[in-house]
């Protein structure tokens, strides 16, 4: 519609050309999430990659939306900042009305699904995958996934990017062996998964945040890191 010749001459036609997202620029890698009996734990490292350059090594990819919801962002960091701004404004608007109504995790998840799917339909996606973690209105833990093409679902464990291939099997096995995992155990699981990701994902960093939501509230802790052993890397064969 914006390409019509007649539209070019309209008084109210935009001065700048219409731009569509073609590719992500500064990107974040995997976000992991696990739903526990007493809450939800999510984790993400603090790296903003500029292609293959590890450019911004202290960015926050986990965000507290309100006392009941945390989100983690994978993909284009500018688009994630845009989403954070929109969500912050929602929280402010609710506080200003002051009637006690707040958004729970499923509501935020649904809202994000609408926004992301709408942008995908206009061929101008927000190039992100968002993990939504938090409480429902009745206090149950909730973990959701929504991506740039509007795919959205809930699960006991979720992961984006490389995490879906490397960490997800680890998290699923851990949940199978321990179906009643607590948040404390999940934090250890996250650290283990992020360590493997640091070994295997070329766009990962050994510096991360972990976010925990329980009925009591939510907090993001970090930056943390794990011990890694690169000694086998000293004499690889085939890479001389």
């Amino acid at each position: 519609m914006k390409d019509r010749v007649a539209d070019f001459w309209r008084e109210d036609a935009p001065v700048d050309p219409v731009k569509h997202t073609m590719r992500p620029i500064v990107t974040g890698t995997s976000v992991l999430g696990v739903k526990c009996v007493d809450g939800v734990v999510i984790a993400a490292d603090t790296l903003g990659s500029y292609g293959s350059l590890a450019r911004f090594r202290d960015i926050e990819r986990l965000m507290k939306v309100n006392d009941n919801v945390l989100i983690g962002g994978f993909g284009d960091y500018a688009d994630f900042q845009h989403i954070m701004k929109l969500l912050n404004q929602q929280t402010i608007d609710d506080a200003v009305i002051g009637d006690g109504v707040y958004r729970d995790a499923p509501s935020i998840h649904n809202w994000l699904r609408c926004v992301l799917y709408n942008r995908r339909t206009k061929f101008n996606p927000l190039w992100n995958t968002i993990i939504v973690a938090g409480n429902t209105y009745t206090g149950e833990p909730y973990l959701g996934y929504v991506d740039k093409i509007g795919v959205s679902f809930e699960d006991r464990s979720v992961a984006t990017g490389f995490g879906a291939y490397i960490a997800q099997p680890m998290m699923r096995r851990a949940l199978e062996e321990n179906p009643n995992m607590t948040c404390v155990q999940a934090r250890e699981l996250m650290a283990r998964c992020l360590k493997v990701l640091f070994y295997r994902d070329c766009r990962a960093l050994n510096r991360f945040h972990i976010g925990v939501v329980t009925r009591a509230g939510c907090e993001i802790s970090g930056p943390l890191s794990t011990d890694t052993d690169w000694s086998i890397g000293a004499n690889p064969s085939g890479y001389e």
Partner: protein
Amino acid sequence: MYRNQYDNDVSVWSPQGRIHQIEYAMEAVKQGAATLGIKGKDYAVVVALKRASSDLSSHQKKIIPIDEHAGISIAGLTSDARILSRFMRTECLNHRYVYGSPLSISRLVSQVGDKAQTGTQIMGRRPYGVGLLVAGCDESGPHIYYICPSSNFYECKCMAIGSRSQSARTYLERHKDEFKNVEDLNELVAHALRALRDCLPNESELTTKNVSVGYVGRGTDFTIKDDEEVAEYLKMIEEEKPAAAPAAPAAGEEALDVQ
């Protein structure tokens, strides 16, 4: 009083600081047939007296469902009520689509109030001539709200509006502190019908033809009962002493303050 000089437009104040058009709009509610709502512990109930414009026509529907968790009962201009109820339905639907959960009643009511306010301020428009009793249930429990043609809205424990509703308000005032402990839906409906009985014109009684009952609660979607389904509720209050003689018709109603 020189009321007539300043009442042609809604955008004109009177020297006493009143806007007469808004007050006239509130009169329209008093012309409508009575309806009332009561909030209990887990349920919100509305009942209405349906009027038939002639013996040949059906009784005018007074209770309109809005969403699974909310409905309204109207008094005043029915056509204005249709517009507002359509607005309320789309707001509720949009909220469900975007957030996946029901719109909280306080938000719904304030959105209607904001929409109605434009008709009380813009030249060339008029206020909506209908009073709405909103019965709904959300995270914080059951609610009854009254939305006035002035676009003011009030959260109520119980409220009665329409023609001859003063006697119903008297009954409600007497019992208002009991309602919050009433857990049984039927008991709440019985209270409502007893109050409604006081709004009848002379030599009329509550029948399955002229009474409508609506209710909503935690875990109970908004439901309307008409015609034969109302009979069981009427039976509950049948054996009781008839109420005091119905109040004299509208002439004695006091003027409402414009806030």
